């Protein structure tokens, strides 16, 4: 395949290098600087794929993101679904094929990197065409901090697509100078290949930078492939240009039919003639440029077909001089061809009637129905659009704070006007910012604009073929036609939102960039209402599609969510711990020895803690330092029990409820001084409890003199647990009298170890004699190792959360969040003893008096003992009433409650469970049933305290 349609010179591709790519299994040449579309067109290939519903051939229809039909699937270097051939920059080794409807995802993970950057600027300019460059220069020269983003590979916008001259020279020279000047400003960030795809409140703009896509397989692996820029701009100047609008006519979808401006871009930017023989169909002057430029490039232009009765006398004269026939008052009323257009059917249009058609042979048909300003970002910013009857387009209909729309995005279509408008928009932004503009910013001189003939707004050419618009395509990707719009109107639909859903117009990959306004216009015609009343459907982010992975950025794999580990993590890893995720924490669940499964390891760890000594890393428990003269007042209001009566040096267990009276957290409270407490919270509740206390202190009781600080990370905590714990703790801390008399249960003592402060507390979450050791996390490993070393003679056994859970469950101590679910009161847990009757009020108290709280059938925490002494009830199992025949009735089966915790007990030598059971305490001694698999397991209801109910062990 050779590049027959490449011009001998011109364009911005690098002709010195040739790359090869494969499309639909065929190898093609191209150059760096090409897009996949331009390279295919250079080889004469228009057809890309067949259409989704009707299987009609479709081709490249535009030169950039507005293309509704040139969709491809990338296969190499890595599969990527549904990209536009017109926006894929060409690289060596690219393998792609046309896409009829659905893209294909790779079946292997994407190993490319993605990341994000934040930037704050005074002025963000979106679009580096003439208006955007003028705006960026104006802002930069004033010393503002500027970001300029543009979606193309290089700056220039429309200036690269035509023959415009500035200051008497080709416009590319001015573009290059502007880019160079911006690069010299230290406060300017200029990003090409960067699409601003979302505009949110307060000047927050998201932009996707394609950093290595154009390098294909040669992209360096260490570099992020794509980057999301999160730009916070005090002022935004939107200079996003305009999309050319087609006209709808019968058989308007054949390969070879494309937007006139697109053909011009392919010629000037890529050095590609889109065909040999063209018909140009237009409703306005702009397409004459395409006709004349293509003619000069050697394309035979069979005719310019101008729908306007008078056409454009000035431009017609130019055509005549070039020998291009012009047919005014005429339209393209149909086409012929297969995989490529072969002829346009040209007919006069008068009073809405299409006359007799002539067939004009051609291999490309270039169409222009006018221009739609790219108002997407403005619309995303909730800006109201207004319909402009002259342009036949929707324009920004109001001024928004901090947002200026300039140039052709605001409906201006002449170069000098766009340049001036860019400068104006930036100047207004500077004024709003209080930044003095630089002395006169001179704009390059554009040729005096020729006053164009008034455009004609023509949405569609009537279908004279008898097909009633069924081949007049409005949305090429969705295969949706004028006939579909007529059906929607006939079905009774009036809202464009309904019409969109009925026809699916605007729902495809291009999100209606060209079809949306056409659909509005044609629907308005069909319903006989003004286009303004029909309106458009809503523009939503993103402006163009963005890969999921780009938005995920680095928040993948281990960085998906922070991992929190304790100071002892490496020790646990070395000891072979199996970890459990508890919130963001990694906690050792158990420490298996060779050949042990979890059950065996836990039985061993439990036995050690109950008969010898065990040690747990409890550092993840939340710790809150509460200080101030009113600390006790606050805690009395927040805990259900009385805290103010706690003596310095002592510890008390406390329960916290929400205002609804449901338990939200529990833990111990150490009184460190009259005006200072250390609160212990659950691991998962640490942050929530701190926030909860802060909220009350700040918003309800600002008069309380109290301050709160999290010290969770600062203090490591190791419970040393078991009848032999006294020996171990006594050995490591010889300065402390660890006897029960000198150091009773629920008290704490400070000591030091080699000068390091250590706090010891007689707290037990297992019922056994236990000492919690608190030490600054920096010294955690050293102190832990001392304890483990000192405990070696007693066989000290590190244990994990699973054993901790078994030990506490045997004692009936609930885990908030496991044995409770936000619907459980302290009374339900059998903790009425922890609810003060003396305090006039505390958070949650009033809710205890509600009707439902008095219900005798409230669920209460009880123990369950499977009668077979073998079954470990699955946690989550439901508890049901026994039926005489031992079988379940048909659903719905009344349920009594559910199993919240369930374990094997070394101590009891049988499995046991905790459960929330309706009227549970009154059922103690009863037998109820738990469906497990297909069987009903009889279980005895017991007290929730199954081990050492007298509490004889806590003092050793």
């Amino acid at each position, binding site marked *: 395949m050779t590049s027959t349609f490449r011009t001998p010179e011109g364009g911005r591709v690098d002709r010195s290098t040739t790359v090869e790519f494969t499309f639909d299994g065929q190898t093609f040449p191209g150059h760096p600087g090409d897009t996949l579309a331009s390279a295919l067109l250079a080889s004469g290939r228009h057809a890309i794929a067949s259409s989704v519903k009707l299987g009609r051939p479709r081709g490249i229809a535009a030169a950039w993101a507005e293309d509704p039909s040139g969709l491809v699937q990338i296969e190499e270097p890595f599969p990527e679904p549904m990209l536009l051939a017109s926006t894929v920059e060409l690289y060596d080794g690219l393998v792609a094929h046309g896409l009829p409807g659905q893209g294909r995802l790779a079946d292997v993970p994407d190993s490319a990197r993605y990341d994000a950057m934040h930037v704050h600027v005074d002025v963000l300019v979106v679009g580096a065409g003439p208006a955007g460059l003028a705006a960026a220069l104006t802002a930069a020269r004033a010393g503002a901090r500027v970001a300029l983003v543009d979606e193309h590979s290089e700056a220039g916008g429309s200036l690269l697509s035509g023959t415009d001259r500035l200051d008497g020279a080709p416009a590319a020279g001015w573009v290059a100078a502007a880019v160079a000047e911006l690069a010299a400003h230290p406060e300017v960030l200029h990003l090409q290949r960067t699409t601003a795809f979302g505009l*949110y*409140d*307060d*000047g927050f703009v998201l932009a996707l930078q394609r950093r290595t896509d154009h390098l294909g397989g040669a992209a360096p692996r260490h570099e992020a492939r794509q980057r999301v820029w999160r730009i916070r701009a005090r002022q935004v100047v939107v200079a996003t240009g305009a999309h050319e609008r087609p006209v709808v006519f019968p058989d308007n979808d054949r390969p070879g039919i494309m937007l006139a401006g697109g053909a011009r871009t392919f010629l000037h930017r890529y050095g590609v003639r889109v065909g040999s023989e063209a018909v140009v169909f237009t409703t306005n002057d702009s397409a004459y440029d395409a006709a004349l430029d293509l003619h000069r490039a050697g394309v035979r232009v069979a005719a310019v077909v101008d729908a306007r009765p008078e056409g454009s006398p000035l431009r017609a004269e130019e055509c005549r001089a070039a020998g291009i026939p012009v047919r005014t008052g005429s339209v393209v009323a149909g086409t012929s061809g297969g995989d490529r257009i072969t002829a346009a059917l040209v007919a006069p249009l008068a009073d809405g009637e299409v006359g007799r058609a002539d067939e004009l042979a051609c291999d490309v048909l270039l169409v222009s129905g006018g221009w739609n300003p790219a108002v997407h970002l403005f619309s995303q910013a909730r800006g109201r659009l207004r319909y402009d009857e002259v342009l036949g387009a929707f324009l920004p209909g109001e001024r928004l704070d901090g947002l200026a729309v300039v140039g052709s995005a605001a409906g201006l279509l002449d170069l000098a006007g766009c340049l001036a408008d860019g400068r104006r928009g930036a100047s207004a932004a500077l004024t709003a910012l209080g930044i003095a503009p630089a002395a006169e910013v001179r704009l390059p001189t554009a040729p005096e604009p020729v006053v164009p003939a008034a455009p004609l707004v023509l949405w569609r050419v009537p279908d004279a073929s008898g097909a009633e618009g069924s081949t007049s395509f409005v949305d090429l990707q969705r295969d949706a036609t004028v006939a579909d719009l007529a059906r929607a109107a006939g079905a009774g639909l009036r809202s464009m939102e309904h019409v969109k859903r009925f026809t699916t117009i605007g729902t495809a990959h291009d999100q209606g960039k060209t079809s949306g306004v056409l659909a509005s216009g044609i629907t308005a015609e069909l319903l006989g209402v003004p286009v303004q009343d029909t309106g458009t459907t809503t523009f939503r982010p993103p402006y163009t599609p963005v890969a999921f992975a780009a938005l995920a950025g680095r928040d993948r794999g281990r960085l998906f969510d922070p991992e929190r580990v304790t100071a002892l993590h490496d020790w646990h890893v070395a000891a072979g711990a199996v970890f459990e995720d508890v919130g963001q924490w990694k906690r050792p669940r158990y420490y298996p020895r060779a050949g042990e499964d979890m059950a065996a390891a836990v039985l061993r760890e439990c036995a050690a803690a109950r008969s010898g000594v065990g040690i747990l890393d409890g550092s993840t428990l939340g710790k809150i330092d509460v200080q101030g003269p009113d600390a006790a007042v606050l805690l009395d209001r927040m805990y259900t029990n009385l805290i103010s009566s706690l003596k310095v040096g002592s510890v008390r267990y406390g329960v916290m409820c929400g205002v609804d009276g449901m338990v939200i957290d529990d833990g111990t409270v150490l009184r460190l001084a009259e005006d200072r407490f250390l609160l212990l919270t659950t691991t998962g509740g640490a942050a929530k409890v701190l*926030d909860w206390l*802060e*909220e009350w202190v700040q918003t309800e009781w*600002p008069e309380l003199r109290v301050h709160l600080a999290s010290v969770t990370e600062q203090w490591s905590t190791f419970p040393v647990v078991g009848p032999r714990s006294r020996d171990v703790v006594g050995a490591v801390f010889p300065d402390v009298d660890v006897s029960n008399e000198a150091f009773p249960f629920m008290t704490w003592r400070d000591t030091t170890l080699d000068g390091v402060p250590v706090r010891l507390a007689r707290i037990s979450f297992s019922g056994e004699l236990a000492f919690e050791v608190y030490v600054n996390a920096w010294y955690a490993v050293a102190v832990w190792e001392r304890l483990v070393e000192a405990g070696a003679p007693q066989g000290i056994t590190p244990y994990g959360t699973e054993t901790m859970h078994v030990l506490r469950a045997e004692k009936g101590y609930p885990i908030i969040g496991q044995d409770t679910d936000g619907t459980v009161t302290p009374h339900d847990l059998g903790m009425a003893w922890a609810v003060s009757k003396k305090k006039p009020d505390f958070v949650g108290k009033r809710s205890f008096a509600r*009707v439902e709280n008095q219900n005798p059938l409230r669920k209460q925490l009880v123990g369950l003992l499977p009668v077979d002494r073998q079954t470990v009830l699955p946690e989550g199992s439901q508890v049901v009433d026994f039926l005489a025949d031992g079988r379940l009735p048909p659903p719905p089966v009344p349920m009594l409650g559910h199993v919240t915790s369930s374990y094997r007990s070394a101590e009891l030598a049988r499995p046991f469970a905790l459960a929330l059971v309706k009227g549970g305490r009154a059922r103690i001694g009863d037998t109820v049933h738990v469906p497990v698999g297909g069987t009903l397991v009889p279980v005895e209801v017991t007290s929730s305290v199954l081990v050492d109910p007298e509490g004889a062990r806590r003092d050793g």
Partner: protein
Amino acid sequence: MQLIECPWCGPREETEFSYGGQAHVPYPEQPGELSDEQWAHYVFYRDNPKGRFAERWNHNTGCRRWFNAIRDTATYRFERVYRLDDPQPSATELAGPRRSTS
């Protein structure tokens, strides 16, 4: 994503803040004297206007301080932020020049 003006820190990204619902709903002085219905209104009922709303925010990952704001729930725009010890701005004051983010 908005830029929210913390009265202590100045404008910060929305992600730094947590929401606290309706403002100026004081904890009842004598909860025990309320009927179940009155208590239910304190616990569960909050206004939910479309439009101007006085509400609480917390600069959670910043200074961790709570403050109040007048915000429009239809446009999401903050009209005022004010400290907890400031009175709720009257409609007349709100009609005056804005002093929050712009």
